[in-house]
């Protein structure tokens, strides 16, 4: 599904990723854990294609295709979805307008027919009902005035509607109370399937109680320094990142 090989990436001349390699298989839920400043968010931005990051070495291959030369919107159409740690507010653009623009922009790039309005509305309604997203929220400007929990639910709603091949969850648990976390995790779990992968980036093990990973990788100083199964997350919770920070240094 996703193969990252020896990835080096800079921002403003500072190297953040220093030879990161990682493979995520179809259907796999891979967790990336690491201390603050280890490069977790950079990894998610570089995979999603944010401008401003310079990849100096290495490759990112999605289903056999090197995506490094693609813009963010092209990568999205290829099936990469980034659930933001802090979803942005877009004043004056209603959530419905945004959802339709996003879904149709991806379809257009893939050479598919644009959705008809009734078909679009039907899909949004069905997904929104499951996630407890109200019609009123859909009519409001995207994320404007939404609570932290509402914003994260909106991210999951987008994920459901855009049907990505690989979803990157960037610290999705930050700022969520237990109830909101449960709703978001249930939304994610409902999307798990043999041909969809997840990269769950988190600082704490808590989220992984709800979204149980197949593999856990420790990111430190820009590289994967340890890989294991879900037990590794528990071990980190108990012992902290100290051993791995020392390793990397």
């Amino acid at each position, binding site marked *: 599904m996703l193969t990252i090989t020896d990835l080096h990436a800079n921002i403003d001349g500072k190297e953040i990723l220093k030879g990161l390699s990682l493979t995520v298989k179809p259907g796999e839920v891979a967790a990336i854990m690491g201390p603050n400043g280890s490069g977790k968010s950079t990894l998610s931005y570089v995979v*999603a*294609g*944010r*401008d*401003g990051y310079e990849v100096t070495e290495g490759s990112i291959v999605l289903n056999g295709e090197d995506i490094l030369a693609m*813009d*963010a*919107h092209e990568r*999205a*159409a290829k099936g990469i*979805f*980034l659930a*933001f740690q802090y*979803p*942005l507010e*877009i*004043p*004056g*653009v209603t959530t419905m*307008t*945004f959802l339709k*623009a*996003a*879904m149709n*922009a*991806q379809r257009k*790039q893939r050479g598919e027919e644009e959705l008809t309005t009734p078909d679009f509305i039907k899909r949004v309604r069905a997904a929104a009902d499951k996630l407890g997203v109200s019609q009123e929220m859909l009519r409001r*400007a995207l994320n404007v005035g939404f609570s932290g929990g509402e914003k994260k639910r909106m991210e999951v709603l*987008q994920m459901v509607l*855009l049907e990505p091949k690989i979803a990157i969850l960037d610290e999705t648990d930050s700022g969520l109370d237990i109830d909101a976390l449960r709703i978001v995790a249930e939304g994610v779990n409902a999307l798990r399937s043999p041909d969809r992968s997840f990269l769950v980036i988190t600082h704490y093990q808590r989220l992984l109680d709800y979204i149980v990973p197949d593999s856990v990788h420790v990111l430190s100083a820009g590289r994967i320094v340890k890989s294991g199964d879900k037990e590794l997350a528990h071990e980190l919770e108990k012992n902290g990142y100290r051993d791995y920070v020392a390793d990397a240094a």
Partner: protein
Amino acid sequence: MNPRPPAIRTKAETALADSFAHASASLPGGDAVRGLRTRAFDVFHERGLPNRRVEAWHYTDLRNFMREAYPIASGASVAPASGLRVIIHDGVCTLPSCALPVGLKLTAMRDALAGASDDLIHALFPDQGADDAMVAFNAAMARDGVLIEVAPGAQIDATIELSFTSSGDAPHGDISRSLVLVGEGARASIVESHAAPVKVQRNSALIFSIKAEASLSHVFETCADSPELHVSTLIAEVGQDASFSSLAFVSAGEVLRRQAFVRGSGERAKIALRGVSLLKGKQHADTTLVVEHAVPHGESRELFKTILDGEASGVFQGKVVVKPHAQKTDGGMKSQAILLSDDASMYNKPELEIFADDVVCGHGATVGQLDEDQIFYLMARGIPRVQAEGMIIEGFAREVLEFVEDETIRERLGAELSGWLARRAS
């Protein structure tokens, strides 16, 4: 008054002074009006064209923009419009031919001025803005315009259109002064549009007197072929429990100065001034507001959004004045600008002058570029950059257009906004 004031010195100023000398004897109005015109001309003569040394005009140096004053059109009536539309063509009024709604009276200003009452004269030549050289020149020279009277209690559902047009022969100037009197408890809406097929220097003034418990909404919009230079003055006096809202949609014209002098003169008067300006090329648009709260419990809201591309320049100067007795005034002013190019510029100058101690007044002014975080967010959902930028700009401007009550006008302005963005993207 000094008969040979030193301020008149440019070619354009001399031409404008000469045009008054030629026209003054033939301008409509009795002795009282004639006296007001002469005094107004003296104000202009003393000050000359506004320039950067005049604080209110610091960013719009008219002496520089108006190197040459085009001859002022003598004008003639045109064929009347079929709908509820008043045409001001080359500064001359043509009333619509249709039957008017009950409670609405329209009169060409040239006719109203002949035998005008003291009250009408007083309303047409208010003290607000009278010190401004361009308002003064307008008062001195305006030959025509329209008098719109809404009877007390009348509810005019249809929007009254004021269509400013020009003949297409040669570069010229046109001047008009119109007055809208809204009686107690009445309600009306007006949309003002400005076209000009050739190079036109326009000086238009629209004066509102809104009596107690009345309500008036006003929309100003430019047309694809707008005047080369336009000084548009809006003066309003808002009575007790009355409300006045004005919204400007600016997307054309080369140099546009919109100035509004609005006074809440009755308690609980509500004032709302808003605008969207879409500027590109070398366009220059200036919005200068003076909002005055003279009595207690007044409310005012100003929201202006400016989007600038190319080498365009924008100005927002908003002054809110709260007089000593105007306690419990509630004022909020916001001007936000987005610069789409490195060569565009925006001057934002909010001012509060508060002489009462128990008021809530705030202002905010921002100038920035498009937010790269927002763009990335949309791109990460599959939306290409240009479309993402367009959505963000459109959303930014739509926050103002949402305030247009008339759905037809709101949709038309929305379509113009989309069209402007589509042309930018192509």
